[in-house]
């Protein structure tokens, strides 16, 4: 059996080499480059012994943050963030830096990639004294300053320029005037920073920005991620919201994305976030801009550009809501459902359906039936949305959402937002130390990561770095969970997360291979669940959650409910033990209620055992008393992109 797979893969490798021009005769994996010479040595005259030698599928998930603000974001800067893109990359790649609050900060281990997504509106202009000003050099004083800079005495030049300004002794060619463009756009500086820190194979700096549509305080934000390098990204300026140049309507963002690709030949995708703060307009059936049902163009464009959804972040979890999923015992997680983003309008229950990932995935099935395209066929990622320049989302190393929320004895009891008019008050303890994006990319490069996002081979975590595999097909059997390489079985016999299953073979239901491995530094795993959503024969949307594999000797009760895994957290000391749950879980699950004519999706949710929440670490380290109602434990989790079934 193993040998058969080896031969199949060998054939695939050789086939690839024959069909590609010589410059592309390389098979990439995260364990290095398999070039033709090496392949020949390895494959030589006899089939290779090792079935893993020629694997080309991703072998390790890459972890990153697709949503981080630095001081160049106006709100972040206003809150006191001074960390720029360069320092943000330095922290993400594993170095120690000094946070805006002055404290040293370092991640427990490096991230694989980072996307700095500053708000495109008001990104700002920064002084650029010498760019495009030849007359500067003709002026003796200008020349002197230029020479100082060139000889490494830039700060002396800066000082002299400042003094000259303040005394009104600035040489004429240097006088600022609006049409002389002595400023450069902060965007170009962000692009330059990404170029400096992008190190293919080691650490990827993906270029991106956030388009922050927020009319009436209703959050329609999207992050835009570039597959491209700076040569393309610097040809444009990011799309903004403020009129007359920008627009708050996502349809206009999609037009901008089209124009970008046409102009540069590049590639972009968008990731929406915080539907929970949109007050019912993130995943519409009726468009808020027109009051009309979404049409063919809307669903097609949205499906084309919005490949992923950020399902968990600091401002609350967006997977599911207990009102929408009353029987889901894990739905009530890091909930932010008070109102819209600026707390100007309170939440009503009818809004929820159009705010959460699971209900959107369900409504998407219905829209697909009506309009031919599913606009809400998105994959999942988590990210921070931190406004500190610090992608530090571990519970024991949480550096907050904004700069005033960096670690301090006060933060656990401070107020995040308060609106006396609506009587909405959100406390800082409600801010969630979440999350990260996991991407099954074959190598750590911009192209490979972006391509994995485009095909939705991603999952969201709430800050944990657990490994999650998920494959769907028609032929998985229990034995596939026992093989030495479940991934090979997965890719050979099925499709990975984000993929599609179509037209069931007669008499067969889909089977799924699921596996999870704990974060090496994190808590054990409680269970793996599969969430199924479908459109039944009566046109009604349904959902059901199945416990597939779990740790320990637990048996579901008469009601089908799996008993709780327990809790080992010592709150006072902010510790736990991995004596419950399991370090890894794997299994094959077949849908017991499959109906071949009904549209459906399946995604995996992995739940960790309870561990201390950041508030518990704060209470312990600062010796403070938390406010009543502050949660002190958390069950970290992962949500994979779904696999869709279409009849």
């Amino acid at each position, binding site marked *: 059996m193993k040998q058969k797979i080896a031969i199949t893969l060998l054939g695939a490798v050789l086939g690839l080499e024959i069909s590609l021009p010589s410059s592309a005769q390389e098979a990439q994996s*995260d*364990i*290095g480059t398999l070039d033709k010479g090496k392949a020949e040595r390895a494959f030589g005259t006899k089939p290779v*012994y090792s079935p*893993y*030698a020629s694997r080309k599928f991703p072998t*390790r998930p890459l*972890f990153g943050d697709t949503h981080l603000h630095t001081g160049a974001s106006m709100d972040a*800067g*206003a809150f*006191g963030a001074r960390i720029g893109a*360069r320092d943000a990359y330095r922290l993400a790649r594993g170095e120690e830096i000094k946070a805006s609050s002055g404290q040293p900060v370092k991640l427990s*281990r*490096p991230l694989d990639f980072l996307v700095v997504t500053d708000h495109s509106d008001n990104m*700002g202009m*920064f*002084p*650029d*004294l010498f760019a495009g000003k030849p007359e500067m050099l003709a002026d003796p004083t200008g020349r002197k300053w230029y020479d100082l*800079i*060139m000889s*490494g005495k*830039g*700060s*002396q030049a*800066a*000082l002299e*320029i*400042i003094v000259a300004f303040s005394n009104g002794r600035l040489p004429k060619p240097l006088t600022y*005037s*609006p*049409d002389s463009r002595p400023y450069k756009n902060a965007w170009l*500086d962000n692009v330059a920073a990404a170029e*400096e820190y992008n*190190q293919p*194979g*080691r650490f990827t700096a993906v270029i991106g920005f956030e388009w922050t549509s927020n009319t009436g305080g209703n959050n329609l934000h999207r992050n835009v991620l570039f597959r491209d390098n700076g040569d393309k990204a610097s040809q*444009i*300026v990011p799309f903004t919201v403020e*009129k*007359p*140049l*920008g627009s708050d309507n996502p349809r206009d963002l999609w037009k*901008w994305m089209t*124009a970008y690709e*046409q102009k540069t030949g590049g590639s972009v995708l968008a990731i929406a976030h915080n539907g929970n703060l949109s007050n019912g307009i993130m995943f519409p059936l009726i468009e808020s801009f027109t009051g009309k049902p979404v049409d063919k163009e809307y669903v097609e464009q949205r499906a084309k550009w919005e490949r992923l959804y950020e399902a968990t972040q600091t401002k609350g979890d967006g997977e599911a809501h207990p009102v929408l999923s009353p029987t889901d015992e894990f739905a009530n997680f890091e909930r932010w459902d008070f109102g819209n983003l600026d707390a100007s309008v309170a939440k009503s229950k009818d809004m929820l359906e159009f705010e959460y990932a699971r209900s959107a995935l369900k409504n998407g099935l219905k829209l697909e039936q009506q309009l031919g395209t599913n606009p809400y066929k998105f994959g999942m990622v988590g990210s921070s949305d931190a406004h500190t320049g610090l992608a530090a989302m571990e519970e024991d190393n949480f550096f907050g959402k904004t700069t005033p929320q960096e670690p301090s004895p006060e933060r656990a009891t401070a107020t995040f937002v308060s609106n006396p008019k609506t009587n909405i008050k959100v406390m800082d303890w409600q801010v969630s130390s979440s999350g990260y994006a996991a991407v099954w990319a074959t190598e750590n490069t911009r192209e490979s990561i972006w391509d994995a996002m485009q095909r939705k081979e991603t999952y969201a975590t709430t800050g944990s770095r657990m*490994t999650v*595999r998920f494959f769907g097909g028609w032929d998985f059997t229990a034995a596939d969970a*026992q093989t*030495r390489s*479940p*991934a090979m079985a997965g890719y050979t016999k099925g499709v990975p997360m984000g993929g599609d299953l179509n037209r069931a073979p007669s008499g067969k239901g889909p089977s799924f291979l699921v596996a999870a*491995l704990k974060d*090496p*530094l994190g808590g054990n795993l409680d269970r793996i669940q599969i969430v199924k959503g479908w459109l039944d024969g009566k046109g009604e949307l349904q959902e059901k959650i199945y416990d597939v594999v779990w740790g320990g000797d637990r048996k579901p009760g008469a009601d089908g409910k799996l008993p709780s895994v327990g809790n080992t957290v010592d709150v006072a000391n902010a510790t736990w033990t*991995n004596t419950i749950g*399991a*370090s*890894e*879980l794997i299994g094959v699950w077949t849908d017991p209620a499959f109906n071949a004519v009904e549209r459906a999706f399946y995604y995996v949710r992995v739940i960790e055992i309870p561990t201390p929440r950041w508030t518990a670490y704060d209470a312990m380290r600062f010796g403070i008393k938390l406010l009543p109602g502050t949660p002190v434990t958390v069950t970290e989790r992962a949500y994979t992109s779904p696999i869709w079934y279409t009849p």
Partner: protein
Amino acid sequence: MTRLLKEPLLHFIVLGAALFGLFNLVNQKGAEQPAKIVISVGQVANLADGFARTWNRLPSQDELRGLLEDHIRAEVYYREAKALGLDRDDAVVRRRLRQKLEFLTEDMVAEPTEAELQTFLTANAERFKSDDRFTFTHVFLSDARRDGLEPDAAAIATKLSTAHAEADLGELGDNFLLGYEFRDVPRSSITQTFGDEFVAKLSKLELGRWEGPLASGYGMHFVRISDHVQGGLMQLDSVRTVVRREWMNERRLQAEADLYRALRERYQVVVEEPPAERAIDAKVSGVSQ
């Protein structure tokens, strides 16, 4: 600080300044002579250019008119607000301006010369060493699948010591989701998968024999390394962009510190003594309780 903000005198001064500003504004403009806003040809071109960079086409007449109208509106508000002194004592404005000045120094770091890069690389050679690379196989013992790891580990150690190279290792250990053979993998990537401590131990093992078990966050691992390529010192040609980046970063931090020191010297700062009754505050904050 908050106490200062509550000070009525401060309120009076701020209000006074604002009124003074308003008075000046009204006075200087007079009734008959409106102030002038001149939009230069260059500015119009800038607006059109910004549009073109966003939309990949030039604005229409209507669109350009819209851009101009918005620009004029912004200019009017900017002037009036500044005249009123609304930019003063505003934390957001202060932070933004500070940011801009700091950026100015960043912008004044010149490109390094070849010689500077070489000197920097030589002085920091360790920082630019290439990563160690490992090729190894492991036999995994899962916490989850075994009741006691130690007795099993002892039994497996014995078997491994006598096993042939081709022995079916799958029979000995447990399945491991991230694989068994790691070929030519950089140290950084192994750290991501197995953790710091594991890699620290790994780099001390002998080649070509089964060693261990080593503990990781998942369980225990018997490891056989077949190749360990030590990271080496790098020539400038192969690490130029990274050396440049690090050089620029050091200069950036240095320039910022230098500029602040130099600017700070231009000021004599007087921090006024708090009034005597401020001692009462100490009691409230719990010091004397």
